[in-house]
């Protein structure tokens, strides 16, 4: 008999968010596919009863909990203490958790603490000949590996967006609270807040259907020999407002800001896609004024349908990286797109 622990933190209201439900889907399927495996749930947060009730029918035999104000915020020392206590109390040899910023920070350290190993950014879990096989990407999404591991406890962090979310009936779960007393050194850090752009200025929208990528071409000299940065800024801003797309950028475009050139004011490194940027998940992506070089397009690994607008018919997108390449002036095309979208909005 072995134990598989599903480990997660709750949202501020005590419920579970989408990444947590996806990891639960993966954990429950894995437990069902492995011989003689019991699923337990381990929940961390200020309050966790709503979460336990939400997933009461997931098949977990026990719901262990570390709760209290000490465990509300995402802080390495307290999260690590809670996670280590839950893993040890459950006796789990396999642990499945969502790959959120909070758990990606803490669980690799916890693995070291409990004498096991952690693997992150897993995109699939399966059972082959009674063994767990994990899938992940190497060299920034350039190649995919499938592997298994002998060390236990094995902590598996599932990439958000890669799994179907668990769904099932809520119920009344019985919590088993674990007392975790934090040493003083675990309180050296306090979380003081969150910095985020005002709601209407937030251009990173993980739930958007469309990723809109702006490349450095928006700031380059155009056919008339001039740059048109204010116009580029207006076109992109209008498109984001009308389409609710998420904004990505090439590295060259965000780097211009650091080099003191005129640059689109609402872009930051957080928008950067690629080798040294993000690898977001959206069903569709539209690249504009971007050359589609490999260090950029590795960040498109999880964008299913891809289109691009570039003046250069020989850019990277033309070479099998996009489904459709429009060889055209993005200023003129986006102006028309915005006009059509605005017309629809006014109907």
């Amino acid at each position: 008999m072995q134990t598989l622990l599903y480990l997660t933190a709750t949202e501020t209201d005590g419920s579970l968010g989408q990444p947590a439900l996806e990891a639960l889907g993966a954990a429950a399927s894995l437990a069902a596919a492995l011989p003689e495996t019991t699923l337990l749930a381990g929940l961390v947060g200020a309050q966790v009863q709503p979460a336990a009730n939400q997933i009461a029918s997931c098949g977990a035999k026990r719901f262990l909990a570390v709760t209290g104000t000490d465990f509300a915020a995402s802080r390495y020392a307290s999260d690590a203490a809670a996670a280590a206590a839950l893993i040890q109390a459950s006796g789990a040899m396999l642990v499945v958790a969502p790959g959120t910023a909070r758990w990606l920070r803490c669980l690799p350290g916890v693995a070291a603490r409990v004498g096991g190993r952690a693997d992150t950014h897993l995109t699939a879990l399966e059972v082959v000949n009674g063994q767990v096989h994990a899938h992940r990407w190497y060299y920034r999404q350039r190649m995919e590996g499938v592997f298994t591991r002998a060390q236990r406890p094995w902590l598996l962090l599932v990439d958000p967006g890669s799994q179907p979310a668990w769904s099932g009936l809520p119920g009344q779960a019985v919590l088993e609270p674990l007392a975790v007393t934090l040493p003083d050194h675990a309180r050296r850090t306090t979380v003081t807040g969150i910095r985020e752009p005002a709601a209407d200025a937030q251009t990173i929208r993980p739930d958007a259907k469309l990723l809109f990528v702006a490349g450095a071409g928006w700031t380059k000299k155009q056919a008339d020999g001039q740059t048109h940065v204010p116009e580029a800024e207006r076109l992109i801003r209008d498109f984001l407002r009308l389409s609710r797309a998420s904004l990505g950028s090439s590295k060259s475009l965000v780097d211009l800001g650091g080099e003191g050139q005129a640059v689109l004011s609402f872009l930051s490194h957080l928008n950067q896609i690629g080798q040294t940027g993000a690898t977001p998940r959206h069903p569709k992506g539209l690249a504009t004024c971007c050359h589609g070089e490999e260090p950029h397009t590795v960040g498109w690994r999880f964008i299913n349908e891809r289109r691009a607008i570039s003046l250069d018919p020989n850019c990277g997108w033309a070479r099998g990286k996009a489904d459709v390449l429009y060889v055209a002036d993005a200023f003129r095309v986006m102006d028309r797109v915005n006009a059509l979208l605005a017309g629809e909005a006014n109907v």
Partner: protein
Amino acid sequence: MPYQIVVCGSLVPDPLQTLEPVQGPAGPALKNEMMLPAWLDPWAGHALYEAAHLARQQPGSQVTLVSLGPKAKLQQVMMTVAQKVPFAWVALDGAAGGFTDPAETAAALAEAISALPGLNPAQLLVFGGWESATRGAGVTLQTVAERLGIPDVFLGVDELKVLPDGALEVLERIEAGRHLISRCAGPPAVLGWATGNLPEPKNNPQIGMANMRGVLPALQKARPVQIGAAGVTFASVTLPKQLRQTRTVKDASPDQIAAELIAWFKS
């Protein structure tokens, strides 16, 4: 307050190169791995520049770069990195590829850090990139923290500010383009950097000359370490089916393209 800033940073293949997996004697590897031109791992590079920036602001601070990689490649990468910012260097000679286990890398790094002369936890900040561009795991630094007994870890850091009372204000990337703001009482702490806010420094031959005095002796002293992935068995490593059948649309008017795009957004 002066800090001892230790930056963990190694090398990665040039991202413009084509990478192809092959089966090596001890598991997967890259085709012609030793022939590929190498770069400083980009996020570790940001950590190094941020370390140098902090050291300039806090007189008496020292920056030590600890690198674990194949010796010959490290030497090549140091030729440019040494010209960027001043640092002392400790090299470990071992594998740095994507299929190694970060727990093994972290054990070697932690051992090298604890052996640094005059190490003082009350001044110690351990920096590195939040993920490597090889494994992309984001596991090494937390493991180093656990091995060194450092209770505070931050990952995806874009900003570090020393507050008037000596506390550290740290901004970490979290979901949906936001930053978590934390206040840490002070060192010791481990910080895995994302991009930060500094541009890559220009090459400075004077800094290069000063650094190079330490680089060659450090290379000579580089201790061999065995880094692999004990316990891990790869079933496969494959390149994605990369190429799409691109349809290139050349002579359509902006209106036609706009209409086609809108239909696509809605499909």
